[in-house]
């Protein structure tokens, strides 16, 4: 398809074209504004046609491990667009923002109950920014206590965001290997737990889709060492109503509202990455905090220990509305979400364990990892591309890094048995194809709007923006 820049038309009158005079000195004033003029009908057609080249949860099964691609309820979209929410200016002032402040305050109470934490900041815009806030808090906490702690313990199965976050805060990462049951190696952890460790960042259940069996011991040992414990809560969808991270011994947890609480992923965002902390860390949370006084809600900026701010305003408010609706909709039944996420994952695993190598032979949580290494190098990549021809979005591949030819599969609770059966059959059929007709898999996909794309050329001959005459073919 051509790009939007290749149109040149009469534009539509979205605004009345008044004659106004602008008196700006020449050295401030812009000359040419090189944007395309496109008619409304062609803008709508252009982006509608682009959308048809896209896969989403609304299109089909999207078992992208670690991302919790569950169905996004439509009513949540509608209520987030209510004028009272969407047209309220962030500087409106508490007096005029009681509804929005109540929603934020109530959401915080719900999240506290779900996780057992004592306070939440809703400010971080995504999980990675929440991690950053968590490590910032650890850094400030130890600086105030005059303790020199400059290292973070992170298991080798962790998301890349964990070490990347530690690095921003100038903390050195100490990597702990995974043991034979898929847990962080407890012995190696004990050896690494020196007085300069500021924080342990653990994902639970971990990225292998396994509940950390030693989590209580890990947190206890860390605390004895004066180290803070951080839970990467990307996998909260396996813990709702089943266990509370605070009771596991975590001092902090981030939740990805776009994962566990079903706000749409938007083709890569916006998300929302709230941070929960225990009481002794509450003072460090960013300003402003929302407080409730005599049935009125207010902003509290008077937090002398606060680390500061991580967002221009109060966070991705529109996502908070959707997540709040989702949690209120489920209410006291929310445990069913995690139960069925776990059921679906274990069911799918049971259908696939004869076909693929399963690196850790345990019941899984809400997702699981298998290896396609028996089908050769690059098999995970090829299987993923071939799945597109069968009408499925592929799982996450080549992650976690410790499993070769990894396929990381997260079905979520919003899929029925028939979908899982069809997906398992497709995977088995593809492995048969690898034996019988390997080329069809190696050259996949065939049924998508474009064939397999040349990523090497994209990197070696970068073409990152449109310009007239800039056509590579």
């Amino acid at each position, binding site marked *: 398809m051509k790009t939007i820049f290749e149109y040149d038309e009469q534009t539509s009158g979205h605004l009345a074209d008044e004659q106004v005079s602008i008196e700006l000195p020449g050295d401030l004033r812009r000359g040419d504004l090189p944007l395309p003029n496109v008619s409304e009908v062609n803008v709508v057609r252009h982006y509608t046609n682009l959308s048809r080249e896209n896969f989403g949860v609304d299109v089909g099964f999207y078992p992208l491990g670690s991302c919790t691609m569950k169905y996004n309820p439509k009513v949540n979209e509608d209520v987030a667009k209510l004028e009272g929410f969407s047209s309220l200016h962030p500087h409106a002032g508490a007096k005029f923002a009681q509804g929005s402040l109540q929603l934020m305050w109530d959401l915080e109470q719900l999240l506290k109950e779900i996780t057992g934490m004592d306070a939440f900041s809703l400010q971080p815009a995504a999980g990675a920014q929440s991690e950053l806030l968590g490590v910032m808090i650890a850094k400030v906490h130890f600086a105030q206590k005059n303790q020199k702690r400059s290292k973070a313990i992170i298991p080798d199965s962790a998301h890349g965001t964990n070490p990347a976050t530690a690095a921003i805060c100038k903390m050195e990462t100490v990597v702990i290997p995974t043991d034979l049951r898929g847990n962080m190696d407890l012995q190696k952890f004990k050896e690494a737990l020196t007085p300069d460790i500021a924080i342990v960042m653990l994902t639970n259940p971990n990225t292998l889709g396994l509940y950390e069996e030693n989590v209580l011991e890990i947190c206890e040992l860390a605390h004895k060492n004066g180290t803070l414990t951080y839970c990467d809560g990307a996998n909260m969808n396996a813990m709702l109503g089943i266990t509370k991270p605070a009771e596991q011994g975590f001092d902090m947890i981030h939740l990805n509202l776009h994962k566990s609480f079903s706000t749409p992923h938007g083709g890569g965002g916006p998300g929302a990455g709230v941070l929960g902390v225990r009481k002794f860390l509450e003072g460090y949370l960013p300003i402003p905090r929302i407080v409730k006084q005599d049935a009125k809600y207010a902003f509290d900026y008077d937090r002398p220990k606060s680390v500061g701010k991580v967002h221009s305003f109060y966070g991705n408010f529109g996502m908070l509305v959707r997540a709040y609706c989702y949690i209120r909709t489920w209410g006291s039944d929310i445990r069913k979400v995690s139960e069925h996420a776990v059921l679906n994952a274990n069911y799918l695993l049971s259908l696939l364990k004869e076909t693929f190598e399963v690196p850790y032979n345990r019941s899984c949580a809400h997702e699981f990892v298998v290896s396609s290494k028996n089908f050769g190098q690059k098999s995970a990549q090829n299987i993923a591309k071939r799945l597109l021809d069968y009408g499925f979005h592929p799982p996450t591949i*080549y992650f976690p890094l410790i499993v070769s030819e990894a396929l990381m599969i997260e079905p979520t609770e919003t899929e029925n048995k028939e979908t899982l059966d069809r997906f398992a059959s497709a995977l088995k059929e593809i492995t048969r194809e690898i034996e019988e007709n390997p080329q069809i898999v190696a050259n996949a996909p065939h049924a998508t709007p474009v064939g397999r794309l040349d*990523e*090497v050329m994209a*990197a*070696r001959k970068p073409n990152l923006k449109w310009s007239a005459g800039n056509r590579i073919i």
Partner: protein
Amino acid sequence: MLEEIKFTKEHEWAKLSGGFAIVGISDFAQKQLGDIVSVELPKVGSVFKQLQVMAIIDSIKASSDIYCPLSGQIIEINQNLHDHPELINQSPYDGGWMVKIKPANKDEFDGLMTGTQYEEFVGQK
């Protein structure tokens, strides 16, 4: 040809030539990395200890540390790699060389693996 070249366990090679050492990565290593799309080389004049990270090679899906096979100072880098990182894939022992080092301690060179030893080492993998 492999005789004058010696290797590290991290898959770098070094070759002595006129008091300097030329350094690159092995054919095995470039095959493992796949299509290389960018190379971050050290600054001329910087000093490294043996097996310290001196460069980074990126392929599409991976980013790999490159270790300095010999202690010493960088006296020249292969500027061609900035625009043509694929030279490492095409010609790892020749056009794909990465840096020239002035070695601080020539004994270190003797401690590296010979071509035959390296082939055995790689064969076991």
